């Protein structure tokens, strides 16, 4: 590794950083695009349909419809890139990136595997090493940023449907962020720190010591809020074809639209990674005291993909909430629940548990 680094005129530390960044972000982007396929095939299975299975490379290799990803990508690239006449052009261009980047970089602090020591140097398997001072506050803050992409996309396209969608997304974000944050704060409190590495270490390798067992209420609140956060059904108020056409991305086409769609799926990946880290022990392997690095990475990936699948699964199970029902749920149910969760655990801690 050192030799490779010197060949590229980098210090080993920077080289390792670059490697991590490339691996993590390309993995997330790959998973996000694969998940569009999972979503379509999975929803088809759930609804007794077949789903996209006919796209084929050279008209021969179908690989159970995975070629659809390629076809979609090529199609999006060659579509005409329309910008509405009256749109705010700068913001219109900026919005997809503002939606995409926060969704991607929210993953930066999450450890996706056990750290290992090689040649006297500890290598941490997260893009930012633990002890960076931001910890889990970072993905939460970045998650809050994500709504700017949606709102800007809505606002800049100068379309009434779009602006309605953007407003709804912003309102939903406000009403859910508090409940979600309080649920996470409870975890910080019981852990005694907000570094993801610490949160994972505190949970240990036994499944009944994980936060899901101690704070099922917090998990339900957090997971529900993640649906609102990622703008997915049953809380996809930024879009809604029966009410506001396509919502915030009505005016978007070609690569910009695909970037917005990819942002949604990257966000989904980051969200499921967060759920796995906060409530399911991150990279901890159940009943294995000292897992190997590969095993821990596999365990984390499995947990993450499972929750990503649950996002898809729930989407095709539940109908959409009405807008006022969402507000009701956010302010009158989620917020008190997470507060009760917080107070309960504070009381438990004061009792010396």
């Amino acid at each position: 590794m050192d030799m490779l680094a010197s060949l590229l005129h980098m210090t080993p530390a920077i080289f390792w950083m670059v490697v991590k960044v490339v691996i993590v972000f390309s993995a997330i982007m790959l998973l996000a695009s694969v998940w569009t396929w999972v979503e379509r095939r999975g929803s088809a299975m759930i609804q007794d349909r077949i789903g996209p299975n006919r796209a084929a490379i050279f008209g021969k290799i179908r690989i159970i419809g995975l070629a659809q990803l390629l076809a979609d990508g090529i199609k999006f690239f060659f579509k005409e890139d329309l910008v509405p006449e009256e749109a705010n052009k700068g913001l219109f261009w900026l919005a997809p990136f503002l939606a995409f980047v926060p969704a991607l970089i929210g993953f930066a602090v999450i450890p996706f595997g056990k750290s290992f020591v090689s040649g006297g140097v500890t290598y941490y398997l997260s893009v930012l090493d633990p002890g960076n001072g931001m910890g889990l506050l970072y993905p939460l803050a970045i998650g809050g940023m994500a709504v700017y992409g949606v709102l800007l996309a809505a606002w800049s396209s100068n379309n009434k449907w779009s602006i309605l969608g953007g407003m709804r997304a912003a309102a939903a974000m406000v009403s859910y962020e508090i409940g979600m944050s309080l649920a996470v704060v409870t975890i910080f409190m019981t852990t005694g720190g907000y570094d993801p590495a610490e949160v994972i270490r505190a949970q240990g390798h036994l499944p009944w010591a994980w936060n899901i067992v101690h704070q099922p209420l917090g998990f339900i609140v957090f997971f529900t809020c993640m649906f609102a956060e990622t703008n997915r059904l049953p809380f996809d108020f930024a879009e809604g074809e029966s009410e506001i056409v396509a919502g915030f991305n009505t005016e978007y086409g070609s690569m910009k639209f695909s970037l917005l769609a990819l942002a949604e799926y990257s966000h989904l990946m980051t969200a499921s990674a967060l759920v796995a880290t906060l409530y399911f022990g991150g990279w901890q392997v159940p009943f294995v005291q000292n897992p190997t690095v590969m095993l821990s990475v596999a365990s984390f990936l499995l947990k993450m993909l499972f929750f990503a699948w649950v996002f898809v699964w729930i989407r095709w199970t539940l109908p959409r909430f009405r807008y006022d029902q969402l507000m009701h749920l956010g302010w009158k149910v989620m917020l008190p629940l997470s507060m009760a969760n917080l107070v309960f655990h504070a009381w438990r801690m004061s009792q010396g548990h």
Partner: protein
Amino acid sequence: MGVIVKKVELGWLDRTYVWPVMKGMAITFGHFIRNLFTTTAKRYTIQYPDMKKEIPAGYRGLHELKRFEDGAIKCVACYMCQEACPARCISIEAEEFSDLNITQGFEEKRPAKFSIDMLRCIYCGMCEEACPKDAIWLRNDYEVAAYDRLSMKYGKWDLMNTYAEADGKDRITEDTTPTVPRRTIVM
């Protein structure tokens, strides 16, 4: 008249959302698993160009003008189908012919031209019902499409050969009887 709407009383378990959501997820997951382990052939979807629906007997698809075993057309150009057709898509021109050597025998009438505009046809089967000679059938071919309007106009020979391949018969492109009718009085 009023309709009594029964109000469903939700129990506390249902009002938590969580339990009903989990029940719903169990249902959808059941569907998912069932479909995951069913082969494509056994799914509900018929994947059209690869798989085709079995056409029931009595289906009204593309028409065929029936022929006798020696290849002579059964149609006697009585215009019954043309009259019965609600879409007015059939047009017939009759001619006379006579030959002693064919099944129909003697002096007969037959269509010189028989055309059906498939773009107009509504596949109602009225022509089939009206036909006194059982000469026009609507059968099981439903893949009637073309790139232009003209080729959707099926003439006499098209109609006689629509099911020639399916039935293993020869394609015929001319009357097995002389094209110029001979007037011979036979008694």
